[in-house]
């Protein structure tokens, strides 16, 4: 059995390692490229969202590389992602590929299904399974930690590229670490080093919140490295979603019937009083929170035709007016080009800069 899975940012090598540890051969999914998107766009429905197209392309590339099993996640709606594995399976089968598809559904209501699914690709004893899962979780948590620190340092670093380099080194080192002890050592060391990257203390960078659909927020290859590009313009970008936080809140706490993200829901309530699937409610709630905690602006990343984000996008102008926080929506699809995104980002940053200057003059 040669397993493949969706590619997602810096997390990809960690999952490769996980499936190896579980006693499988792994075909590591390639980083999404132009070809990935072309393949996905060619075979996916026109109005499917970008994540579906990218993943479909990724699967095709992985199947061509010899994979015969696909593992991905499901859902119960109303976001379309919950049905995507079935659609992808249908499309891939009609294209003549032969493979097995495993969908990991939410824990709530599908516990036995999950156990069954996981058992089919776990070929090691339970003790090893526990070890594999804990090390994976720890690695993911440290990668999130690295990124967080890096996002703070990069906008004001003195030597351009120093924190990005450290981040990449850190991810590679974490990937090599074998057990929890090693991971902790390596992790602490790199968090420490990233924290010591030389920065210009005099600068007070613009602060921008990044909200939107989880896949396009987490995958730099799809969102034109929007965070890195903002950082290069000297802007601090706070990403509202990190994989480990999200999984903790939405998979584990949800299964225990603990309402996750209570505060975010409360923040969103005056504007959107209903969970609409995906990250629609979060996008509205996070915007309110960013406005209240003194951010200069918010950037929403939404795949074209993403239903929850369209709901959020319709409501955000009102939030923006009421709370006085500029919001830029970047809609991403196969037609989106880097230059278009950069132009919009630069214009938005200009606007924020002017706003801040004007506010400074007014208070002076």
């Amino acid at each position, binding site marked *: 059995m040669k397993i493949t899975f969706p590619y997602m940012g810096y997390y990809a090598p960690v999952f490769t390692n996980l499936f190896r540890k579980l006693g499988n051969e792994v075909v590591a999914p390639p980083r999404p490229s132009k070809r990935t998107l072309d393949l996905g766009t060619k075979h996916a429905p026109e109005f499917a969202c970008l994540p579906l197209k990218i993943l479909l392309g990724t699967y095709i590339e992985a199947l061509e590389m010899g994979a015969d099993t696909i593992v991905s996640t499901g859902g119960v709606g*109303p976001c379309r992602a919950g049905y995507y594995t*079935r659609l992808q399976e249908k499309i891939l089968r*009609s294209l003549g590929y032969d493979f097995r598809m495993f969908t990991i559904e939410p824990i709530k209501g599908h516990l036995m299904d999950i156990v069954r699914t996981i058992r089919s690709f776990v070929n090691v004893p339970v003790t090893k399974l526990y070890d594999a899962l804990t090390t994976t979780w720890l690695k993911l948590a440290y990668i999130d930690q690295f990124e967080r620190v890096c996002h703070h340092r990069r906008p004001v670093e003195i030597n351009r590229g120093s924190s990005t380099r450290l981040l990449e080194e850190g991810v590679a080192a974490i990937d090599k670490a074998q057990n929890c002890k090693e991971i902790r050592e390596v992790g602490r060391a790199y968090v420490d080093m990233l924290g010591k990257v030389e920065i210009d203390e005099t600068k007070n960078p613009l602060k921008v919140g990044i909200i939107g659909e989880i896949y396009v927020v987490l995958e730099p290859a799809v969102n034109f490295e929007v965070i890195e590009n903002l950082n290069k313009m000297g802007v601090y970008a706070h990403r509202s979603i990190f994989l480990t936080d999200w999984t903790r809140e939405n998979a584990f706490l949800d299964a225990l019937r603990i309402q996750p993200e209570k505060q975010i829901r409360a923040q969103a309530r005056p504007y959107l009083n209903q969970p609409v699937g*995906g990250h629609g409610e979060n996008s509205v709630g996070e915007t309110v929170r960013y406005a209240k905690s003194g951010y200069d602006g918010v950037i929403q990343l939404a795949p074209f035709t993403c239903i929850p984000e369209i709901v959020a996008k319709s*409501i955000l102008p009102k939030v923006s007016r009421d709370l006085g926080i500029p919001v830029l929506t970047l809609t991403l699809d196969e037609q989106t080009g880097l230059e278009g995104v950069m132009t919009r980002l630069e214009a938005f940053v200009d606007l924020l800069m002017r706003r801040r200057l004007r506010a400074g003059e007014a208070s002076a």
Partner: protein
Amino acid sequence: MSLVIGIPRALHYYTFIPLWERFFYELGMKVVESGPTNKHIVDLGVKTTVTDACAPIKIFQGHAEALARKADVVFIPRVVSFEGGYVFCPKFLGLPDMVKATVDNLPPVIDTRFDLRRGFAALVRALVRLGTELGSGKAKAFAAAVRAIRHFRQSGWTAHLRREHGVGAVGSIVEHGVAASRSSECGVGVSSRSVAQGVAIRRSDEHGVGATWSSVEHGIIRRGVHGTEQDGEKLPVTIAVIGYPYIVHDPFLSCGMLDILEKARVRVVTMEDVSTRDIEAQRGALSKQVFWHYSNRALKAAYHLMKHTEIDGLVHATAFGCGPDAIVDKFLEIDCKDEYGVPFLSLTVDEHSGQAGIATRLEAFLDMILRKKGLSAFQRLGGPGRTDSGLHAGADSRLQNGAANGLQDDLKVPVVQGRQVS
């Protein structure tokens, strides 16, 4: 002076209007509708919505805005679920919030939540809450709710209460023929049977209180099977038009698709012609149930029609940018081709669609089906007085629906001529 409730004629209107209208009627309130979709309404909607919203949402906002000066309150229910396991599209869930955030000078919006995932009693509770919110007593609201639900049930909702196949399923309002009256220029004539059986869709007189329920001025949802067969002739071609009721049965949005087909002497069936029992019998066709209400019904209705009835082709009517349809469309495309061997045509409509484009595609599709069946165009056109322009003659329904429909007077909107391409 009784309260005037405005109901936008779009989206879930097509399924739930008998319930809502009867309920308000029982409470002694007046109901005003926004009238059939026209160019003006579409323009209003396009101005306030985000560009990537789907056409039905844009049209809905237009309808809501058109009610601004006509109603005391606008009723935009938050329909979350009407049967266990199935929810509505996220845009339906966020609908009242989207409208409130984007449309200015709207009268107060009543956004009662209908979430029947935990059971049927939630419907009664929601209606009672709605009644009390509008200022009527609890007892009165309860009585009205019961009557409205009974009325809705009689209009074809029985399946839900019988709870066939374990999962309660909402029957469509047309099951027993809601108003299959068809416009007389179709040459088919008003089907008296369905009018007699038909549930009153709207009160004939919006200005008088003693309005009658029995009059069906025009059909909201038409049933192809009954109407066409009453002609007493066998039509050679049957085509299933699968699509959500708010697309297929909105003549403006669908560019008069049904008219075009009927004028071309095609027997048309829609998903409303498939009973809830038949729909739920198709559960096994999917490895995982589609979790959206309308998509679930559309997909399974299509499977039923392909498996158990003789259809010569399947047209999927979908709106530009429709999220769930991206999935439904691909499933239909693949299964029509690989599984059932049924000719398939996907027609995407939006606020810019032209009738000529739709007619041309339907015509080509029909020609292909006829050739496949070995029928000549002459046989298809059959009766005297028919010419080959049959298809295009129906093409101006977008124009007509503005001018010819009496309801248009409600809005006093000039109908813009000249939408027609070619």
